[in-house]
């Protein structure tokens, strides 16, 4: 697994760094069964360690996980998305997502963007993810990558902070 390149040194660049993974990243790699009993903070320290032991140690808030096809395949364990969120990951950009991970991620307001050109992103690239527009700006490569638009009902949910706050709002509205 290639590690992110060192900072390009361009201080003007903002946005999170890209952590690039391949196809079929599975939920056992994202949330290893061995640590599923414990609290999410402890589990998150082992997130993706089977693929890149540096990821959980070095990922910083705002960083972006980039992957190939079928990201999050396997278990329904929501901890797969929670662990990324706990590490401060701002979004996941992949060529495609396994369906349960996709829903879990959106439900937790961790935007999951389907980006056919995700393969052009290099480790360490500075990215700004614009979920509402369905686009990723690659500041390092000075390129805008189009993503599949997120359905409106999911955008509304993300705007509310995820499924739970979204439901709470709807329940309050129903009572009023």
């Amino acid at each position, binding site marked *: 697994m290639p590690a992110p390149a060192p900072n390009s040194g361009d201080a003007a660049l903002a946005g999170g760094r890209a952590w690039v993974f391949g196809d*079929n990243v*599975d*939920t*056992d*790699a994202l949330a*290893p*069964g*061995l640590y*599923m*009993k*414990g609290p999410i903070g402890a589990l998150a320290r082992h997130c993706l*360690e*089977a*693929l890149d032991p540096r990821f959980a140690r070095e990922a910083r808030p705002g960083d972006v996980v980039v992957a190939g*096809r*079928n990201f999050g*395949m*396997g*278990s*329904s*364990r*929501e901890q797969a*998305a929670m662990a990324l969120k706990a590490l401060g990951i701002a979004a996941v950009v992949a060529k*495609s997502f*396994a*369906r*349960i991970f996709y*829903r*879990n991620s959106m*439900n*937790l307001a961790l935007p999951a963007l389907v980006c056919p050109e995700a393969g052009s992103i290099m480790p360490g690239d500075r990215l700004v993810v614009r979920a509402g527009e369905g686009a990723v700006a690659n500041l390092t490569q000075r390129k805008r990558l189009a993503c599949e638009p997120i*359905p409106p*009902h999911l955008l509304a949910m993300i705007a509310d902070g*995820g*499924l*739970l706050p979204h*439901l*709470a709002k709807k*329940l309050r509205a129903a009572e009023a």
Partner: protein
Amino acid sequence: MSTVPVGMPLTLAEKLVAKAAGRASVRPGEIVIAKVDLAMIHDSGGPRRVEPMLKELGVGIWDPARVVLVSDHFTPAVDAESAAILDLTRKFARARGVDAFYDMQGICHVVLPERGHLSPGMFVAGGDSHSTTGGAFGAFMIGIGATEMAGVLATGEIWVRVPATIRIEWTGRLGRGLAAKDIMLFLCGRLGMDSANYMAVEYDGEAVRALPMSERMVLANMAAELGAKAGLVAPDQITIDYVAAAGARVGADWRRWHSDPEAGYHIAHRFDAGALAPQVAAPHSPENAADVSAHGEVAIDQAYIGACTGAKLSDLHMAAEVLAGRKVARSVRLLVAPASARTTQAAAADGTLATLTDAGAVLLPSGCGACAGYGAGVLAENEVCISATARNFKGRMGHASARVYLASPFTVAASAVAGRIVDPRPMLAERDARRC
């Protein structure tokens, strides 16, 4: 009951989603709101996750009679943390009025049909990725995560995108020593782990129709390994006999739950079951499947017969056929974790357990166990295991350097005897010859 207009051919998946959405018909790609007939949760993704969310929302379960709770992931408790999770799960069942609570009775996907909770035509949300298993019974059963489940428990509804359907027909009959697991490993290898992403898979054909429910459950279960939202087998008399015997109510309209002849499929595959050889999937993905002979001499440390897809009564019977009168190799430990309490009872009553233990198998408690790295039987650094389970992702069954091969219970048992991965058919032929 909604009816389907004449001239509007639908797949089984479309009919099931349309019914749940209160619609006459639906089209692939549409997003609809489905009413849930049943919600299934377990000790890992269930109460410990959803209870705080229900509290936060300040709501109860929309209909506790439509919820089934199964403790299977952390059973039996091995430390204070797992004991606390199981304790919390029991308290949730009492406090939230969930009467259908199965505590250490086996793995949810096996317990649900066994105890009569599934029947054709239902729409079921399960808090586990292998919830697709319910599709063997003609129910549309999808796997979801914990927050999503909290939403289902609060409202009784869920949004779904109507899936396109992949039809997979298996002609002919499986040969001696072949099982539904071989079919699914072959499909993982041939089609790939995301070949059915967001879609429904429907299995049909002579070979599928000849399978008992326990084997059809493997087809539906491992549709998850193809990425499918649902894995379906249209109900027939075999389905109805099982469902009725389990005590579930069978709707008078059960015959409508099949795809219409002119229904549109995303793609249709046809394979010959008679030509299939035993399959083995190499580390670290089910899609690394190939004929058993393609893997060469692979020495093993452990053989594991367990999990929802690999330790039902029919799976134990397969292992026993190979192991009768044989011994597990000295260099190998064979671990058997029957899929449910009823599986254990039936296997004890018919002598299967004795055959397994005489051969040197070690019995483990029923539960998800080593399959997902939660329970007894996990692997040490660089160990090699052949397993009748559904997944062999890196690090799933213990140490990240451990290597897990997937195969049918026949192949797992034969490999346990040989001490290396082998084709089970010669051992079965020898046994069949002795019996003649």
